């Protein structure tokens, strides 16, 4: 194995380094690719050129539609739409994009245009949007698209140099695809007892470069939300510790026994005041929680 690597190194050093369209198999192929940074350092480092390819198809595979799209794509969209004018066309999304949240994260809502369509019409609409010069990016949810149709989209995106994401179910991973970049995204399982901030794991299925064995861990939600979740988790742990030592623990345990056979952690009990609980306690908890969320 070391011998093989050595010979490869020898061969590689013989090659001229700047042949357009040719890259070493053990390096990322950058070439003249125009890219848009993803906004995530670890992901940028693993993508050829350091970002989403502009004017090419990026395919994102997910176990369940609607889980991590905006989280993955939004930083790049915000960066791409900030300097230039142009629309972002969302074709056949799984549910409504929520404008206030997108606006708060930096994507101007006036740029957004949503096309609701069935499968065939969605493909047509995506292709038409790619032919428009005032469209900066297209996000399309095409669960049952044929590779030939993807190829058409890829060519259309290359004409006007737009960002194009196609979201498909994870079951499509085995199919061939003309996409320049294929990613698989899934949420990371949170270990039951310890409450961490949920993340997402990105596997690069296809790129111009060597295959990537292990996935990349990226944050699964906005940092502000992560902060709130972490703060609430910390508060809950503190309450747990308190509960062990004070009289409240006894009251809570009694209440839990009384409420039924359902095994419920005291933390959850604290968090979700039952309707039947004493008024004073529920009120105090609500106030604390609201302050926290703010």
């Amino acid at each position, binding site marked *: 194995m070391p011998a093989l690597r050595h010979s490869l190194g020898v061969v590689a050093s013989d090659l001229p380094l700047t042949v357009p369209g040719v890259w070493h198999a053990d390096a990322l192929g950058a070439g003249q690719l125009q890219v848009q940074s993803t906004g995530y350092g670890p992901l940028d480092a693993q993508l050829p050129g350091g970002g989403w390819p502009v004017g090419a198809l990026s395919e994102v595979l997910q176990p369940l539609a609607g889980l991590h799209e905006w989280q993955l794509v939004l930083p790049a969209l915000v960066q791409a739409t900030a300097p230039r004018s142009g629309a972002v066309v969302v074709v056949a999304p799984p549910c409504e994009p*929520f404008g*206030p949240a997108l*606006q708060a994260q930096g994507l101007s809502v006036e740029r957004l245009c949503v096309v609701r369509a069935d499968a065939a019409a969605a493909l047509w609409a995506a292709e038409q*949007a790619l032919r*428009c010069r*005032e469209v900066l990016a297209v996000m399309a949810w095409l669960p049952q698209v044929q590779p030939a149709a993807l190829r058409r989209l890829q060519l259309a995106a290359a004409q006007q140099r737009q960002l194009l994401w196609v979201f498909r179910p994870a079951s499509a991973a085995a199919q061939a695809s003309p996409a320049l970049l294929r990613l698989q995204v899934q949420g990371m399982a949170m270990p039951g007892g310890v409450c961490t901030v949920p993340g997402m794991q990105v596997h690069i299925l296809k790129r111009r470069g060597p295959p990537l064995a292990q996935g990349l861990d990226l944050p699964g939600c906005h940092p502000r*939300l992560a902060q709130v979740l972490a703060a609430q988790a910390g508060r809950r742990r503190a309450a747990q510790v308190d509960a062990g030592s004070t009289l409240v623990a006894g009251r809570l345990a009694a209440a839990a026994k009384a409420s039924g056979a359902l095994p419920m952690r005291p933390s959850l009990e604290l968090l979700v005041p039952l*309707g039947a609980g004493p008024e004073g306690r529920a009120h105090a908890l609500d106030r604390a929680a609201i302050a926290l969320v703010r």
Partner: protein
Amino acid sequence: MHWIALPLPWCDEASAPPAGAVHTAAAGWWALRFTPRVALVDAEAVLLEVSTTERLWGGREVLLAQVLQAWAWAGASARGSAPPAAQVAGECGPVGEGTAAGAQPTGVPVIWGSGPTALVAQARLRVALAGQALPAQGPLSLPLHTLTALRPHVASLERMGCRTWGALRALPRAGVSRRFGAAVLRVLDQALGDAPEAHAWLELPEQFVLTGELPALAESADALLWSASRCLTALQGWLQARQQGVLGLELAWRHDLRRIDGVTIAPTQALQVRTAQATQDMGHLRRLLSENLARTTLAAPVNQITLRLLEAAPLPHRSASLLPPDHLGGADPAGAQGEALHQLLERLSARLGEDHVQAPVLQADHRPECMQQWRPAAEVLRVTAAASKHAAARNASVSVANTALDAAPDALLLPTWLLNPPRRLAVQGNRPCHHGLLRLLAGPHRFEAGWWSAAGEGAGPAPGEGALALRDYFVAHNDVAGLVWVFRERLAPVPSVSDGPPVAVRPHRWFLHGVFG
């Protein structure tokens, strides 16, 4: 004075009685872009007086080449996508390869005539159309039959050995005037430039309404499009001469039958097409019409269509740049390839329906489902385009409005997907389920809003818009569903119950309202 005479692009179809006149008038509209002095003579030729404008177009030869090309286009688009000019010449007579048959840029010969007076130009056109060689000497050697006013007298003049304009002019004027009438001499003088000419100049109507008889009964809406595109060509000429762009257009058609199976049919039916920006792009209008017509079914066969311009706006010509166009700045949007956004939105709306192509409009409200409204995207674009015009004058108000919307303190904690209406979740024990049991991570975040819009009844089948919203929102999670935004509906407090917990009767209902995707 320099005149150019061209045959009417579709002079062979001017036979339809009432609509023919309209069509013939429209046949000359394309020429108005070159010069304001355009006349139609004898329903067979278009005459252009170009001496005043030829310098603007870069000289006589350049202007002539452009006129011929425009004529070929007008003829081609008038008959669908037929190749230009070859058929026209074939129908009007054998094609003469004489001096007047110039080679048009596409290689198809176009017949034209030119001369210092209108009658000379027309005469040369007639000679060329007849396939004869033009006489080498000036207009004096043109044959007599090329002047319309002399045609009744050609036979008698020929018996006198008088065949050309020059020969007629050489005859004593008093005798000619006595025998053939003063009109003959007047026309001859006009033709030779000795007397002033008077023309009925072609003028554009104030309102564009064009009615066309269909060549055959149209059974399907698609068949209408073929005829409509001919009207669109005429419309283009009208718009170019008036320097206007289309904002609204109506295509009406008249049904051939009054009743089918005893059901009375309206005599006419109409279809309106509107665009966000004034346009002269007939390709875009044609696509819009075809998308709309594809969804229309005709009640009965159609024998006549009318194209009416509903609304137009001045469309000033772009000033040509002094510098060559560069591809770096993209400062020239109309020069770039690809269509504009409003064209895309109109076309998508035309095929998919207005309510399927939408854009969000943010509202100041506390209820998540009321924070944004979905409006047809074409309409929103129209509004924002108008707003941006005003903003150019004073951009303070827009920025104020934006900051007001940005000011929501916890907007960063809202989910990026919204389920509207909220989806009811199953409950196990006291915990909501969505792809398995959900764990509540943060909350509750209490909402109590909407009391101003409706009086109570928050306990419908699903909490609808406009109702009083009493909810506690939680951020919940499980491994399959990811981070979701759920709420537990609180029931409105019942004032009459005095003792005991009032809401213990019914279990709480949980709803899924958003996904942090």
